[in-house]
Each structure stands twice: as structure tokens, then as C-alpha cells.
């Protein structure tokens, strides 16, 4: 005789403290054990791919801020890289270095949130995330200095960046990356050996490298499964081929490894930034663009009027969440014929069911936290 219990369906979300936005996870439970998990999304679907087909290439840049709103710089960059591939534009050196600096700052800011919120999902009552927000704020201050915005940055341009950074940017950035390692030590002291974090996350949500690759998982999740794959090294964009850094990989593929990989990546980002701030040359930040012949009516629209040749391009970069790709098809008109975002948050969710079935509700939350989704990017 065994105790027979009824399966019990719980909707985690769309309004739930731990779904990181309006995301719904339909869990079928047997007691506290999960026997089925189903994702329901689309609550934040804004149809960006359709909207982009009616706007010029330049007008589409702000959309890319609003997909992954915690890493707007990388969103911008992936898109402009795709457009540059389409048009064959080579941005000047300083722009490349600025892109590298901004992306790494963005990675630090984004991983701060990811690690902090992950600790929150483990049940730490806001403390780690509050401490990490402190550092994220400093990064955002730098962004504000560079482009005037803090969240939806819209800094990258096709062929470069929107403007050069002000003179006070470099000293502030140097000071920040000088302080950051100490802060990172602090976080590692607080979290890395924390017995409860280890208990909660070791051996949970394990993905073997084969499973991770088959599920198209990318970014820190893929690296946590032990696969040394980083587009910054594999297919260097911006100035990543000129800096020296390591790929952080995990060896167990569990939630804890995703967390330590993110922590280690923040250190690597600091390393990249140190080099980038030394190596960045002076010069223009914007390339000459092959613009369409546009007669200025009342205002100079010429630099914006890009008309790429017919063709298609898949531009991808390593965003904090994984492989962020933009697949663009041009038919020679001012607007993309097809604009597809390969969003890492969305595709990293593929193995969610595999990881969470068999665990408890608390595990599902921690696993979801370790995937580090941004619902703006999941739904687009």
C-alpha cells in the first residue's frame, strides 16, 4: 500500500515574485515534487519582429534596448553588427574599443543582477542583490555619462557608436574597475562558500554538455556544463581579438556552476576592461556610411538613410545571457525584410522541463533563477 496523492497544478506566475517578469510556469506537483512543467509566455510579447519590418535600420536600434533591458548595450551591438555585416561597414578602431568597454561594463551590470537575484531566489532576503545593485549603479553612472541614458541606452550606431565618451569617463571607469575586484571578493566571501547556497544549488538542474548543446543552450549556462564556448573568443567581434581573457567553465553543469561561472565572468570582464582602458586609441568613433541618396527636405536625414544591398546576415555576439543573434534579410529597401532575434533567454528555457521535473518547487525557482531570463527578451 502506498499513499496516493492527487497531482496538484500550481501556476507560478504570471504574477509571482520569482518569475523575473510576467512569465508563467505551470507546475504539476505530487506533494512537493514536480512531475510536469509547462511554460506559458507571451505576456510581454510586443511583436518587435513585425514592427521592425516597417522601420528603417537605424530606427530599429531602440527596439534592441527593450528586448534584454538589463543588457541594452549588447542588444544594440548584436543588431548593429548584423547590419554592418549586411552593408560591409568596418567601424573605426576607437568605436570598436568603446563597444568592447561598454559590453563588458554591461556584462558586469547584468551579472550583478543575475547573481543577486539568484541569491534572492535561494531565499536571501534582498541583501546580496542590494549590494550588487550598488555596483550596477556605478556602471549605469558610466553609461549615463556616455549616452545620457541608464537603462535603454541606444548607444551603438551602425558603423560605430553614437558619440565619443566625455573626458571624465575614462578616469571614472578606471576607478570603478580598480574597486570592483574588492567588491567581487566581498561577494565571493558572502556567497561562494555559503553552506545554504551550496546545499540549495549543487546537483540541482544538472545539464550534461551533450544535453546542453543539443538543447541549444548558450552563454553561462552552456559554459557551466563544461563546454568552453564563448563567441568573444570563437568569433571575435569589436576588439575582443586584441584582449587577453579566459573562458570560465563549470564542471558539474548544475545551478551552482552557473552561479560561479557568472561570478568568474565578472572577474574576466574586469580583466578585459583593464586592458581595454589602456589600449583604446584616439580617433573617430563613426565610420563613413554608404547612405542612400536622400534630398534633405527640412532636416539632415542623410546619415540615417542606410539602404543595405540585397542579402542576408546573421550577426551574433556573446551577450551576458548567451548567444544573441540577429538574422536580417534585406531586399534593398530602407527597412529589413525580415528581422529575427535569436534570443538567448528564450532558447535557454528549452531544457527547463528537463531540469526541473523530479525536483521540488524550491528547486524549480532556483533553476529558473539560474537560467537568468529577461522576459522582455523571451517574449520580444
Amino acid at each position, binding site marked *: 500500500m502506498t499513499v496516493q496523492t492527487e497531482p496538484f497544478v500550481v501556476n507560478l506566475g504570471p504574477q509571482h515574485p520569482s518569475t523575473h517578469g510576467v512569465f508563467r510556469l505551470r507546475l504539476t506537483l505530487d506533494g512537493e515534487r514536480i512531475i510536469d512543467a509547462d511554460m506559458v509566455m*507571451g505576456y510581454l510579447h510586443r511583436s518587435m519582429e513585425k514592427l521592425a519590418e516597417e522601420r528603417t535600420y537605424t530606427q530599429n536600434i531602440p527596439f534592441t534596448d527593450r528586448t534584454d533591458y538589463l543588457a541594452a548595450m549588447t542588444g544594440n551591438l548584436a543588431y548593429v*553588427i548584423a547590419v554592418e*555585416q549586411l552593408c560591409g561597414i568596418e567601424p573605426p578602431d576607437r568605436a570598436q574599443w568603446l563597444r568592447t568597454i561598454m559590453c563588458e561594463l554591461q556584462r558586469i551590470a547584468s551579472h550583478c543582477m543575475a547573481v543577486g537575484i539568484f541569491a534572492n531566489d535561494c531565499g536571501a532576503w534582498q541583501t546580496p542583490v542590494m549590494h550588487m545593485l550598488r555596483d550596477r549603479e556605478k556602471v549605469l553612472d558610466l553609461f549615463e555619462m556616455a549616452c545620457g541614458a541608464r537603462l535603454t541606452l541606444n548607444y551603438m550606431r551602425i558603423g560605430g557608436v553614437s558619440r565619443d565618451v566625455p573626458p571624465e569617463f575614462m578616469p571614472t571607469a578606471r576607478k570603478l574597475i580598480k574597486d570592483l575586484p574588492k567588491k567581487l571578493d566581498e561577494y565571493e566571501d558572502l556567497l561562494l562558500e555559503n553552506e545554504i547556497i551550496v546545499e540549495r544549488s549543487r546537483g540541482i538542474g544538472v545539464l550534461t554538455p551533450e544535453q546542453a548543446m543539443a538543447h541549444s543552450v548558450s552563454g553561462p549556462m552552456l559554459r557551466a556544463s563544461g563546454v568552453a564556448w564563448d563567441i568573444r573568443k570563437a568569433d571575435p567581434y569589436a576588439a575582443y581579438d586584441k584582449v587577453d581573457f579566459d573562458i570560465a567553465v563549470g564542471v558539474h553543469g548544475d545551478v551552482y556552476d552557473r552561479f560561479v561561472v557568472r561570478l568568474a565572468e565578472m572577474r574576466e570582464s574586469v580583466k578585459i576592461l583593464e586592458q581595454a582602458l589602456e589600449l583604446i586609441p584616439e580617433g573617430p568613433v563613426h565610420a563613413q556610411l554608404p547612405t542612400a541618396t536622400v534630398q534633405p527636405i527640412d532636416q539632415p536625414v542623410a546619415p540615417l538613410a542606410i539602404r543595405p544591398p540585397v542579402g542576408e546576415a546573421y550577426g551574433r555576439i556573446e551577450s551576458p545571457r548567451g548567444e544573441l543573434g540577429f*538574422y536580417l534579410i534585406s531586399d534593398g529597401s530602407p527597412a529589413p525584410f525580415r528581422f529575427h532575434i535569436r534570443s538567448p533567454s*528564450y532558447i535557454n528555457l528549452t531544457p527547463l522541463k528537463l531540469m526541473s521535473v523530479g525536483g521540488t518547487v524550491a528547486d524549480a525557482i532556483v533553476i529558473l533563477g539560474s537560467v537568468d531570463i529577461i522576459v522582455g527578451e523571451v517574449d520580444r
Partner: protein
Amino acid sequence: MPSNGPSVTKAIAGLDIAHRIEQKFPGAVEEAIPEAATMKADRLAEVCAFLRDDPDLKFEFLSSLTAVDRLEYFEVVYHLTSIRLNQMTAIKVKASDRENPRVPSVTGVWVGANLQEREAYDLMGIVFVGHPDLRRMFLWDGFDGWPLRKDYLVGPGGRFPGLERFPGESQEPLGGRG
């Protein structure tokens, strides 16, 4: 493909990959352009399995799967990455039936296609035959139409033309779609 900076990833051009596939599966390639090779739909599964398992290709990682409405037909684009060999390629498959486009699912080859095929089904209306759980993803069940298709919500004067020209652009004849 013009790339940004010295590329380390080896991009296997569509012609090249088409050649290799043709050697293994004669007649499986429908057409090949430098960007991508187009497969015949009925041979897709075996070609994909070959691309994944071949020791020289090892495309274990499905980077991106998406569908494009080419007006006359639909095409599904697969961007493949080989992590171990650091190379990349793209293949395509066409679905010419506009009313009921059907393409075989590649979830059997790459599990990662699961959500991406659901997305393509949801927004473009392409039925992936063999997909384990083909339901709407972002839109609710019962949503009418496939919003990413070019003819979705056709206006009274035909398809909304989109942005054909920049404001103030000269009216010289355009290539491509125009």
C-alpha cells in the same frame, strides 16, 4: 559574408555545404547560394542528422531557427554551429504551400529546436511535422492568423507596403522588392 574583424569561426558557405551534402545524399539539395543551401523538405531529417554526426562537420548546436515569408513561399532557416570545430553554416528548407505550409521538424536531431519551432509555428504558421508539442507560444490559443506573415491583416489597398523609400528620397527605380 563580410565579417567584422578577423573571424576565427570558419563560415562554411552554402555552396560548400551543399556540395558535401550532395555527395552523401544525392538529390537532397534543392538549390545553393553563398548564404545558405536549401534542402528538399523530405530529406531534411537525414541531412540534419548527417550534419550533426559527421566528424568533419559536427554541427551539434542549432544556433537559430526561424521562418521567413518570401511572399511566394516560406522558408525555414537553420543556423548551425559546431562548437568543437568552431565552424558555422546555414541551411534552409522551403515550404511552398501558402495555405498549409509543412516542414519536417528537426526536434529529433536537435532538441533545442523545440521552442524555436513553436515560435515559428506561432508567428508564421508553419506546421512542423513531427514536433512533439506544437502549440501557440506567445499568442493565445485560438488567435486568428499568423502575424509575421507579410499578408497578415491585409489593408483595403492590398498589403501595407511598408517603408519603400526614405522621406525625400529620389524616385529612381529600386532593386529588390520595389
